[in-house]
């Protein structure tokens, strides 16, 4: 079972490497959104400090949603999804492998990219640390919730817009606690409560989402 999990992760990372442009585009999208906001609101230092964390979170959210199209659609179209479901493994193993691989190519690089970006927003050292921790804890929830939406809209016409409408409301708590953690640190308070809640959200999503995803994928495969 664990060897199957590793095989799926390895395969998806290899595919991401071969289709580099897809992955790089998502990251560029993230960077562009983050850079464009200060151009809109003006370069006032205090304003930037105030909106920095929120901007990074919104951009991370959008980037993770546009990358969802990659998650199951290609495997569905070329039949490899049905093959994986017939491989004698629990469906949840396949799904967890795919989500982990998705997080490694979107959530993880976004978390790292937050460091130079917080310099851009002049967040300061401690809030930057909190932002990175919050992203590391919260982006898995984005991948997991996004995967539910991607599985539900698989094979539908106009699935891209629908998935955004489905997933964005679900991710609101992640956004609130993620930005709240950084605000707390910047205000001299402890961010522990927000970070714990973020971790809890990710764990809850990890426990519940795979089953929903497997059920949705089985329906799509019919």
């Amino acid at each position: 079972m664990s060897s199957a999990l590793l095989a799926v992760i390895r395969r998806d990372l290899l595919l991401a490497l071969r289709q580099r442009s897809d992955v790089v585009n998502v990251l560029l999208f993230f960077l562009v959104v983050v850079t464009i906001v200060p151009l809109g609101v003006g370069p006032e230092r205090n304003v930037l400090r105030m909106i920095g964390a929120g901007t990074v979170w919104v951009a991370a959210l959008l980037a993770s949603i546009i990358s969802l199209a990659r998650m199951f659609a290609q495997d569905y179209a070329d039949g490899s999804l049905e093959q994986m479901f017939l491989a004698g493994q629990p469906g949840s193993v396949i799904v967890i492998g795919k989500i982990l691989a998705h997080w490694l190519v979107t959530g993880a690089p976004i978390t790292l990219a937050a460091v130079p970006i917080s310099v851009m927003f002049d967040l300061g050292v401690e809030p930057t640390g909190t932002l990175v921790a919050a992203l590391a804890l919260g982006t898995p929830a984005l991948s997991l919730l996004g995967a539910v939406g991607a599985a539900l809209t698989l094979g539908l016409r106009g699935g891209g817009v629908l998935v955004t409408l489905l997933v964005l409301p679900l991710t609101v708590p992640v956004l609130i606690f993620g930005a709240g953690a950084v605000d707390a640190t910047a205000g001299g308070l402890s961010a522990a409560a927000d970070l714990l809640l973020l971790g809890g959200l990710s764990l809850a999503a990890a426990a519940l989402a795979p089953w929903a995803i497997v059920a949705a994928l089985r329906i799509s495969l019919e």
Partner: protein
Amino acid sequence: MLQAIDLECVRGERCLFQGLGLELSPGQCLHIAGDNGAGKTSLLRILAGLLTPTRGQVRWKGSDITRTREEYGSELAFVGHLNGIKDDLTVLENVRFEAAVRGLVLPEGQAREALARLGLEDFEDVAVRYLSQGQKRRVALTRLCAPVPARLWILDEPFNALDARTVERVYALVEQHLAADGIVVLTAHQKVDLPSSARRLDLFGWPLA
């Protein structure tokens, strides 16, 4: 060993078949024939557990396949309309991944051997996207000769896009599998050249309900 009991399949508004039952024992082969839209693919997908029948159930070794998905899957090799291989991986990577996701380690030598049996020996390290349709089909059919202990083969139009020589090779594989007490269920539009023991099921399709 493989049993289908009282299957009914409704797609859209149309009832494709009703009250369909079949039973296959080790060493038996079933050829499903019928016009376009008669429900051949739907029947195969029901047998593979990908499609839920409107009524009835499929049993493998006496138990309902929807309850024993993992066990059933590990004994099943399915070649559908879609090849189920990745364009961006090489032929060898595709074949080895399929074994790996089944929890098996397929040494490179064995994988190359399996590919050679379908005449792919010079294409192992080529990305699948550069292969022709027929060659892609061969990669999918390698599922049948990789040392994966699949007892039941479900093949949906396996001969599509294949050249005459490869069709012969696939027939040889089928015969070998039947001789080893395997079970084969397949559909084919071409005239088939299956062993005389093979049974045939004709689907006619039902008029609009």
